[in-house]
């Protein structure tokens, strides 16, 4: 059997001004083919104006086991949300 093509993650910018968003993955032998395939697989209905492809092997992800250590500290800091501070009704533009 031939060598398996590497996996690429595909990110699409849907409109000018919005961030690229992960839409899925695909196999391709190189970056150029990955962009071509992404065009065919993920933008058949005008879904995008720009494509990024990244080799899946090059993505570093946080581990589900570290979820607590990474994200729990934010739980106790509700004052980071503007709604934490009640404002008097009479005061405007805040």
């Amino acid at each position: 059997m031939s060598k398996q093509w590497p996996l690429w993650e595909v990110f699409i910018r849907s409109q000018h001004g919005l961030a690229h968003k992960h839409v899925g993955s695909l196999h391709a032998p190189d970056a150029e083919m990955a962009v071509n395939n992404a065009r065919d697989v993920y933008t058949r209905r005008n879904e995008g104006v720009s494509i990024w492809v990244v080799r899946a092997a090059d993505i570093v992800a946080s581990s589900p086991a570290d979820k607590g250590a990474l994200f729990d500290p934010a739980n106790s800091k509700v004052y980071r949300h503007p709604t934490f501070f009640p404002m008097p009704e009479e005061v405007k533009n805040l």
Partner: protein
Amino acid sequence: MYAQMVETGLNAVRSAEDMADDERAFQARIDAGIKIEAKDWMPEAYRKTLIRQISQHAHSEIVGQLPEGNWVTRAPTLKRKSILLAKIQDEAGHGLYLYSAAETLGVSRDELLAALHSGKAKYSSIFNYPTLSWADMGAIGWLVDGSAIINQIPLCRCSYGPYSRAMIRVCKEESFHARQGYDIMLALARGTPEQKAMAQDALNRWWWPSLMMFGPSDADSVNSAQSSKWRIKLFSNDELRQRMVDQTVPQAEYLGLTIPDPALKFNAETGHYEFGEIDWAEFHNVLKGNGPCNRERLRTRVTAWEEGEWFRDALQAYADKHSQKAA
């Protein structure tokens, strides 16, 4: 359905007492409606069942291109031909989304394809029937893709994140398929008596195989009960089939076509259509490989894979050459 009679490898539904802490926490997350993601801990049986279910679904999308490919060169107009090509291209895309979802579970696409080509993996029974006339393109879009939508919409809410996201993409595109099918049926039903007869003939041949797509009643199936508990199956085969009949009968009436089932009648009390016995011997026979087109479908897939090998290798050789140059 596109995945029929998926095995879980279990003899009884897992109860809380059977489970170790890991599995109990996993089940609690599913019960709370939290999605399971690729890197999360999951029971081996869940992982394996999902690989079987998603890959069977993917294979069905890929093999499902073949009955329609039969009519690309003979579509009645250039517009119909372009639409059919776009639909078939979507099916390839759906197969790819699903293979990607399966790959997150630790299996490679080439392994899955090898299982399809060796005859080890299954695909939906429906694609082993021949497409004898242009009206079959209408009947497939209307009935087969219509049934697929009924099955796939609930799967958008299934417990496995990558599968549910693939289903959301698929469902967005699938209503084009059902509508273009019904549009073909409409054109034929409004056409000459010969064209209307062609539409009726296609309905006659595709009606029962479409009802079989949902699989036999799984009211007493351990596999289905376990899959429901894991939320990778959200409704029973009978419930989904009933939904298909209820929504399709009025659509056939609008076309002025007759559903080929003398026992079909509306029950005003339940608000549902009652329908006749399904020939499950035929279904099992097709699953065993003895449908009208099983051998031809598989042979066509294997030939396409083998004859494309030089091209896949050439692309790889080109990529290798350029990465060596860069290094």
